């Protein structure tokens, strides 16, 4: 039995496979395969976009606030009628158009330089933790994207930041992801400054706030501009809970994101 297994590992096919593997790895790490990798990514981009947009529609998270259910029902009924009228292709184009218009509206009021990007995928294969959510966009180093830049949706709300980039793609950590930290400030009387970080893929937390600072529920949280490349004033979310135990030095705030992070198809990377 052992001899059979050993014979298998020294057979021709296995040796050829290992040689090809070595060639690919050397080709990649020496940079020789970069054009091929870039071509494979670019050629597949349109289809990836289509598949992702179908999937993100399935994955749209329901509104967690039960008080809004009647409005949600009415909106759904309206949507059903509209869907019956429009063909699916027209609807896709219309959605894209609306998002781009919203972007133009936002940027005409704010002087940010930006790069529009399509969301192609979420980065998972065996790693299924909700606490670590990343998306992959179709713009990378060659388009001017660099690590640390903020990423916003069509309403101008920050949804994450660039954590890794390749020539033609970039990985964005979402604001609710545990590993995503942003320099933030509360729009309260004290203009409290701190660092926001994702909390289990659901909410955002702002820790280490001195007990002397007064935080109110529903205070808005924006980027503070203290990070090197993310401008001040991008909306992060709204305070939904304040945790201030009298026996502790610091208090913390739970921030609820204002956008559905499962429904991102087009985003914009904000340049410094």
């Amino acid at each position, binding site marked *: 039995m052992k001899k059979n297994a050993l014979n298998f590992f020294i057979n021709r096919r296995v040796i050829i496979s290992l040689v090809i593997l070595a060639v690919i790895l050397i080709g990649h790490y020496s940079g020789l395969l970069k054009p091929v990798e870039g071509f494979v990514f670019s050629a597949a981009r349109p289809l990836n976009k289509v598949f992702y947009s179908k999937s993100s529609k399935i994955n749209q998270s329901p509104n967690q606030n039960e008080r809004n259910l009647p409005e949600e029902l009415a909106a759904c009924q309206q949507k059903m009628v509209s869907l019956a009228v429009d063909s699916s292709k027209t609807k896709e184009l219309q959605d894209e158009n609306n998002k781009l218009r919203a972007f133009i509206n936002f940027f005409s009021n704010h002087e940010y330089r930006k790069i529009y990007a399509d969301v192609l995928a979420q980065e998972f294969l065996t790693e299924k933790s909700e*606490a670590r959510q990343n998306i992959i966009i179709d713009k990378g180093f060659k388009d001017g994207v660099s690590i640390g830049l903020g990423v916003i949706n069509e309403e101008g709300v920050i949804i994450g930041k660039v954590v890794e980039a390749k020539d033609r793609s970039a990985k964005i950590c979402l604001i609710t992801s545990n590993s995503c930290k942003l320099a933030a400030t509360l729009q309260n009387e004290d203009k409290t400054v701190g660092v926001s970080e994702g909390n289990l893929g659901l909410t955002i937390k702002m820790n280490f706030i001195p007990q002397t600072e007064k935080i109110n529920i529903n205070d808005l949280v924006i980027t503070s501009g203290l990070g090197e490349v993310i401008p001040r004033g991008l909306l992060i979310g709204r305070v939904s809970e304040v945790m201030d135990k009298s026996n502790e030095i610091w208090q913390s705030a739970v921030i609820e994101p204002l956008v559905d992070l499962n429904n991102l198809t087009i985003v914009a990377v904000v340049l410094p």
Partner: protein
Amino acid sequence: MPSRIFKIFLILSIALLAVFLQFSFISSLPVFFRAINLPLAFLLILLIFFSSSEALIAAFFFGFIFDSWYFSPFGTYLLSFLGIVLFAQVVLNNWLTNRSLYSFLVLTIISSFFYNIVWSSFNFIFSLGGEGGRFFLFSWDFIKNLFFSALWLVLICGLSFVVLSQISHRLKPVFLKR
């Protein structure tokens, strides 16, 4: 020869569809469905219905594309997919030799565990000190995923076996006849 080229072309076409579905579609579904691993299921089906050569070609194809698209260290997917084909081939040649549904399902469970552990190990080793460099083995998410992905793989491969055994004579019936 032309039939072999056609066969490889057909395999790569289906593999390409599996790549798109896995990368853009499945990865964005709710957590339970993200445990579906189409490339792994496809490799095991190839190994059972065709031969290790076809499975190796598909493993290179999946590995290269995923390593180019994802942000895991380059080589993680190539080594994992290649590893799983070689591992499953050794298991098939030495232990699960009768090509029945039972042996196929046992192979899928073992392969699913092996793949997840190998992929996570490579990712852990290559990303030491980085974001992915956290030890996975005692993580609840990892254990949960291990079982979910085995469950999906058994479902997909089991169904494929039942369907494909109707058109192939290389396999034994689902229930052994007396």
